[in-house]
């Protein structure tokens, strides 16, 4: 299937869902602005309420293992080296060498030029390689460059592509441009799954987060993702709540499931479990699987491993008992 065909498919499907004969920016605007609003106070209160759930014993054990299996273990630094990426990939293969029953993270997430290195270590282990693309993190590049960036990562073996939307276009109301960029990137992904980073910290309002979520799903994103991790605030619970509501309602409308990935700022097991509670009670248990929910994180894994050891041995270890290839950034 060629790039243009898929883009046309996405447009045709969008026309169908919107009930319009031509997909214009006007039509998209009406549709997105017709979504129900979000009350900020109520949304934050609901998120805080979910955060008070007390997850203990067996449920906690289960949740920790699930959370580990949902991590996209990430390094996205200018200072990344092949050695560091190899180390991270090795960590993904055996997160806790002292306990080989520890589940593996879902994926290793790197810049495009590191895909081959990560793939070399991970092979067919089942741990995926995800690459950020489309001029991550700002997204400020021309479309041919973004598409080439994407294809380059896919050719190098990336199983998943994390793209960024053009926040400038979104904030100026040019939804059609954002739509086309996502649809074209999706086409360039081939078999790779596409995560659409909305950079919610730059969208600011919850209404914008909801609209961007629906726009991303309409354009064919397989995942909607909060942040690049380069902008604060990154993945907050209320923002993730809005996105979980969006994928839940999207399934009601289309029958299709879309994944959710909060990324950046989730550092502790306690936080991660709050997110899982939200997934469970808002989107539903079908999303409690790394096919449909991910954590974009680096230091979270080590805290989950510490908690896992604690649940097993009954005592807290110090961080030095967690084997890590890049301990300086992990604690």
């Amino acid at each position: 299937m060629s790039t243009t065909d898929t883009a046309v498919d996405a447009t045709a499907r969008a026309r169908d869902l919107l009930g319009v004969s031509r997909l214009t920016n006007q039509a998209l605007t009406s549709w997105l602005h017709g979504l129900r609003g979000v009350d900020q106070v109520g949304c934050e209160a609901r998120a805080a309420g979910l955060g008070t759930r007390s997850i203990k014993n067996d449920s906690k054990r289960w949740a920790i293992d699930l959370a580990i299996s949902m991590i996209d273990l990430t390094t996205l630094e200018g200072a990344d080296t092949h050695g560091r990426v190899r180390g991270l990939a090795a960590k993904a293969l055996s997160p806790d060498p002292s306990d080989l029953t520890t589940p593996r993270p879902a994926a290793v997430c790197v810049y495009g030029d590191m895909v081959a290195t990560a793939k070399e270590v991970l092979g067919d282990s089942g741990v995926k390689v995800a690459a950020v693309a489309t001029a991550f993190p700002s997204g400020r590049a021309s479309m041919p460059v973004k598409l080439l960036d994407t294809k380059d990562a896919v050719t190098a073996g990336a199983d998943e592509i994390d793209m960024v939307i053009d926040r400038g276009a979104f904030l100026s109301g040019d939804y059609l441009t954002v739509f086309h960029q996502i649809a074209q990137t999706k086409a360039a992904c081939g078999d790779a799954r596409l995560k659409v980073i909305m950079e919610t910290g730059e969208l600011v309002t919850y209404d914008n987060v909801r609209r961007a979520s629906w726009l991303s799903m309409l354009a064919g994103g397989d995942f909607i993702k909060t942040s690049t991790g380069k902008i604060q605030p990154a993945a907050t619970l209320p923002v993730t709540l809005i996105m979980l509501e969006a994928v839940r309602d999207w399934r009601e409308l289309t029958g299709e499931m879309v994944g959710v990935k909060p990324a950046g700022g989730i550092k502790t097991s306690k936080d991660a479990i709050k997110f899982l509670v939200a997934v469970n009670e808002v989107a539903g248990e079908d999303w409690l699987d790394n096919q449909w929910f991910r954590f974009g994180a680096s230091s979270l894994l080590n805290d989950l491993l510490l908690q896992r050891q604690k649940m097993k041995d009954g005592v807290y270890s110090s961080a030095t008992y967690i084997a890590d290839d890049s301990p300086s950034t992990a604690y």
Partner: protein
Amino acid sequence: MPTFEYAPAPESRAVVDVDSTYGLFINGDWVDGRGTAFKTVNPATEEVLADIHEASPDDVDLAVKAARTAYTRVWSRMSGADRGKYLFRIARILQERAREFAVLETLDNGKPIKETRDVDIPLAAAHFFYHAGWADKLSYAGYGPDPRPHGVVGQIIPWNFPLLMLAWKVAPALATGNTVVLKPAETTPLTALLFAQVCQQAELPPGVVNIVTGAGDTGQAIVDHPGIDKIAFTGSTGVGKMIARSIAGTRKKATLELGGKGANIVFDDAPIDQTVEGIVRGIFFNQGHVCCAGSRLLVQETVADEVVRRLQRRLSTLRVGDPLDKNTDVGAINSRAQLDRITSLVDAGEAEGAERWDNGCALPQKGFWFRPTLFSGVTQTHRIAQEEIFGPVLSVLTFRTPQEAVAKANNTPYGLSAGIWTDKGSRILWMADQLKAGVVWANTFNQFDPTSPFGGYKESGYGREGGRHGLEAYLKGSI
């Protein structure tokens, strides 16, 4: 089996000592009641928690006399600043012993620990802090240069928020210089009795707060006692009317905070996910044992089906069960009598043709329980749209225009609370102006704060509690 099963996370009972027997707290001391002792049970298990003495009319007389002596000799002569110090001290002790109070309230009342821990006890402490601040500033409250207290106040409180209602009553009474004879509800006396221990711990002068336990007869003895200057009552409209009849023609003042049948009004431009949360908070908070509950949902017809569908999905995630479990959302019905009343009204709703739906959750074998229930296809003439159910039961009605919403919302003998859900600010203001309700919430529900006056219109009672307005009821020359 659900994928993500939450393991039990019960709060420890060990944090609170429950005595086997409780006497009356009169003049700073524990005395035996001369009535017939009764038992208070844990509604979640039907386990007997303690024997409670009943105050006879003679005991009430003793309590009123102690309150009078404390008023004339100590409390009315004390400076506002000094009264404030006692109130601050009580507030701090409530915070320090918050966990103890939360567990005891949950045991005696059946409400979830999540609510006692996060709502009842912190708000009770907040009421004492707030009124402590007023004690030395009454000259600036707008009721004249030197407003005077009434004297001895008789206070009768309900079982739905036992400690919180005590705080709503005792804090403003003490801040304004009154002394108190308070009767907690017969099914939930324990936190009031623990509060008596707090008064001792705070070294509050004897007789300033007296707590007498018992049922209707004890309440009647307080209302009828000639030494009482003012009655403050929260409870049913039926009992409120009896009190009003009893004190008619006497010099006694009264504030009555009675029943309600709050309308929660949802327009089609409402923020729908938060609206669903607000509806849940409006009627399933505290098992619906809330006088200002949003028990009538008025939904614009264009979104009625969607709202009901989303509501049903949300109700299916409510966790009903052990109130001490930190993950419980809906606890036990407070008493067998209340459960019977809910059941009979729900049966009436079905018989009248409304469509009944509940979330089908499993209920514990022992104790008093009722599933979160929703009635659709309800009309104004149904009993479940008119009578206060005081349980986890929501009646859904529809409307077409804002005018019709107002008319339906006001078409009730009650007038305590209402909620408006819309994205239009101007409509909120227009609606709030038309609604005959003491409290109108916009895009939220069941929010309480000591600075905000609370009270009703029509059969929901008169007088206000909380805020500057609430002080008026405890000062002379006013209501």
